[in-house]
């Protein structure tokens, strides 16, 4: 049985997914990728990631809608959700926190920022 921790990277940019996936693999995570919010939901119906890195603006289903559905899903363990987006208005941040985001990263960001946020969540 695979006991590695899973990180789900949800972003419509394949470049961002690639960078983020490399970062989490270096930290010892298994990484799954989704290009839309809908794909992320489908994935979470069958798997329980420990952390989800979630973009806001994506086709088909955006990040905030995805987050609301995710938080309503019956999952064995509540994944930590980090919104990771170019949206930097305080109202958007408040909206994401209200919908159940645990952390929020404004793009562009550095590797140090990501490490800081994971440390705050007790994941690194």
């Amino acid at each position: 049985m695979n006991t590695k921790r899973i990180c789900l990277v949800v972003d419509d940019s394949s470049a961002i997914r690639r960078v983020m996936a490399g970062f989490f693999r270096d930290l010892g995570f298994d990484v799954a990728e989704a290009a839309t919010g809908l794909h992320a939901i489908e994935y979470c119906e069958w798997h329980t990631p420990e952390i989800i890195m979630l973009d806001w603006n994506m086709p088909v289903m955006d990040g905030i809608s995805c987050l609301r559905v995710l938080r309503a899903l019956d999952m064995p363990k509540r994944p930590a959700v980090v919104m990771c987006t170019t949206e930097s208005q305080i109202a958007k941040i408040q909206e994401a926190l209200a919908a159940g985001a645990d952390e929020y990263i404004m793009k562009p960001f550095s590797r140090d920022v990501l490490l800081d946020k994971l440390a705050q969540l007790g994941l690194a």
Partner: protein
Amino acid sequence: MNAADFSYIAALLRERSGLIVTPDKIYLFETRLLPIARKHKIASLDGLIAQMRARKCEALIGEVVDAMTTNETSFFRDRHPFEAMKKTVLPGLIERRAAQKHLRIWSAACSTGQEAYSLAMMLRDDFPALAAWRIEIVGTDISPSVVARAKEGAFSTFEVQRGLPIHSLVKHFEQVGEQWRIKPELRRMVDFRLFNLLGSLAPLGQFDVVLCRNVLIYFDLPTKARVLDAIHRQLARDGALILGGAESVFGISDRYGDVAGLRGVYSPAPAAGRAMALPPLRAAV
């Protein structure tokens, strides 16, 4: 850079700020001083130093000292000193100051103010009963530009993402264009002053906690001893000194004792250190 120029600028920095620059740190001159040279339309580092030597221009020298002494900082930097403050140092002090209801904390070499503001946020969030106390957080730095920035309390998106939980950002900052500014009620808790650690510390008064992190590492041994002794005179006997991860009092000053279980936290009363520092753990008041 030739040997004479290096000696000149090293002596100048040491005299003005206590900063020790060894030849292996010459690269710092390039990264930090070339922008100043460019600003003054001087072509090279050698040219900049020649100007400083020839004209003895105080404004230019001030800019150079400023650039060389400005150090990296972030909100809740290193985390563990803040945990030590929250779990042990502050609960003990709050118990012992219950009658006076007054606490003074000094963030020495505060740079752009992140440490002082982090303390203010922690006091507000984790010790709500202190709202009825007189709390003074004093931040000092030798650099006029960073003290001005600290007072302004405005930070870039990049700066607020380092070390600061998103809930704290939303709670304690307001968004002003591209910047994030600490809310006025938190800014009022902190008093930033231009101050040289190598001068007399008496005007600052007495403190319950002094945070002097990642400062001593830049000083030579006699200067470290002098600063530690001077801080000792400003520190309440049941207070605490908090140093950076690579710093210690031991072998430098015998006026302090360690505090069991707390890395980087020192008691100004060596013998009493262990007894004073660890009151029973209790929930924040």
